């Protein structure tokens, strides 16, 4: 075994992953700050353009760096990353430039959000208040995963720290919005889930027929614009782009 067996409890923590990976973890638990740190540090690593680094990504609270172990040795990459970390509180560093704010039409409740009432109750508020919060809170793409282009959005106010269901919903449709643990998922494919479905959009995070098939980038923000079920049906019937009526602008 290597010295990595004795894992440090201090953060940020740098650890080797396989032959060509390094993971920089900012916290053991998800917090808004830990996610901001992961996004900001990834931006810093990308900007530093370190020889031998081939790819970077983020999870909820970590930055993941892949490198070519034959072009640049592990110790060298580690040293460069440690130098970049440099005692900075990465949660306070501004997020990278070029992120977009998306305004995404969404219908909440009813047949488009069958578990809205149940979720609102768990959050200790009524359904109108829940819709009001969901359509006035700018949520950030914390990470993209589990399916291509599928965003995990957050973080919602603390009362939305509601658990997943003990059972699975057999199938939620593409475009569904589901909630748990202060996060929303905007599903890019029809799938079973333990998260409660509270709304739906005609927004597609993965559009394989497009040259740029991934609609969102990590760190982008979404503001849901409330529409009726009928309006959503109209968008679904007419939208050719997969954006589902969404518009976006660069966050400045």
């Amino acid at each position, binding site marked *: 075994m290597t010295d990595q067996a004795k894992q440090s409890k201090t953060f940020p923590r740098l650890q080797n992953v396989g032959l060509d990976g390094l993971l920089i973890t900012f916290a053991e638990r998800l917090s808004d700050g830990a996610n901001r740190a992961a996004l900001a540090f990834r931006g810093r690593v990308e900007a530093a353009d370190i020889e031998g680094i081939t790819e970077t990504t983020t999870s909820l609270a970590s930055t993941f760096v892949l490198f070519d172990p034959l072009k640049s040795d592990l110790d060298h990459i580690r040293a460069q990353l440690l130098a970049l970390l440099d005692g900075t509180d990465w949660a306070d560093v501004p997020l990278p430039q070029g992120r977009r704010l998306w305004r995404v039409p969404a219908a909440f409740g009813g047949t488009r959000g069958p578990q809205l009432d149940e979720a609102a109750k768990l959050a200790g508020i009524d359904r109108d208040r829940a819709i009001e919060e969901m359509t006035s809170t700018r949520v950030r793409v914390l990470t993209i995963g589990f399916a*291509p282009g599928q965003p995990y959005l957050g973080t919602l106010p603390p009362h939305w720290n509601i658990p997943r269901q003990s059972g699975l919903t057999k199938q939620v449709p593409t475009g569904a919005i589901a909630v748990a643990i202060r996060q929303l998922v905007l599903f890019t494919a029809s799938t079973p889930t333990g998260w409660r479905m509270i709304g739906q959009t005609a927004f597609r995070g993965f559009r394989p027929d497009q040259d740029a098939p991934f609609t969102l980038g990590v760190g982008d923000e979404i503001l849901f614009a409330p529409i009726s079920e009928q309006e959503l049906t109209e968008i679904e019937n007419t939208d050719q782009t997969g954006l589902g009526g969404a518009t976006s602008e660069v966050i400045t």
Partner: protein
Amino acid sequence: MTAALIVRRAGPAMTVQDLGRKGQLVYGLAAGGAADRVALAEGAALLGQSLGLAAIEMAGMGGEFEATQDIRIALTGAPMKADLDGATVVWNASYLMAAGQRLTLGAARSGNYGYLHVGGGIDSKPFLASRAAHLTAGIGKLIQSGDHLPVGTDPLLDQTGNVLIPQDRFSGGTVTVLPSVHTAHFPEDVRARFEATAFERTPRGNRQGAELAFEGPPFSTGEQLTILSECMTVGDIQMTGDGQPFVLLPECQTVGGYPRIGTVTPGDFAKVAQATPGTPLRFEFVTHEQALAAHRPLETLRADMARSVQPLIRDPHRMHDLLSYQLISGAITGWDHIED
């Protein structure tokens, strides 16, 4: 007109594969690509072409193929019963397949993934710089009977009749592993037991992951349910909720919440991908330095294999005629012996 490979009969799990698409992890898409990269290097060496060209990956079972024009073919990976218009074809070799000839590939005799390479590569439309199907992500599709697969331009049409000795990866054995994201979460005695345990592949698995069976208590971190979802990497050995190990294959998710005790080194990855039910596997942690010293990038592997390629018979131009004679069968048996 460009050549096409006509699929007269498709096996149940055939896809176009290459080295996959890098740079998409941040969008939730793993690189994907061929389950057995060594087979891609062998095919490229046999046909004297680039490692990046696409081939047909056949899981468990081949199919029947015909070409619209003369093309070169090579067969690598899991060896399957193979014939060209009824004449036996040897695995790990290249041939000229004349227009109208019928190539018939049967079930895998060992291993899981066999590969049919064509001179010039399969020239289907790339998506994000790769032709690889990634079915779990909704990219590409299974090859179907009746498909016409475009074949790229082949400048080396006269170079056929070569054979190579494949890298042995079909009988399991010791697989070296490096620490992964959660290795330190597993107590030392659990890691020691992991290294001392005999595993074997179960029938459960696909291009996302391969399940392993073993005897003994589950391999647990003791904090299984509280781990935050974290980045995954191909080769990670994941312990699911009940402590059942899965090795993650090229179509794995990019993040996951189950703890991973280690990750298979790139050089031993094909051993796991090609392990069939019952194939014994053992895991051994190595240091980064040891793994790096043993690491042979695919391009090096391809170049070394290209140098060791041998003529299948003395006169490749007469190969087709010769194949109808019994005198070749001795040589075929010889190669079978090497493969097994």
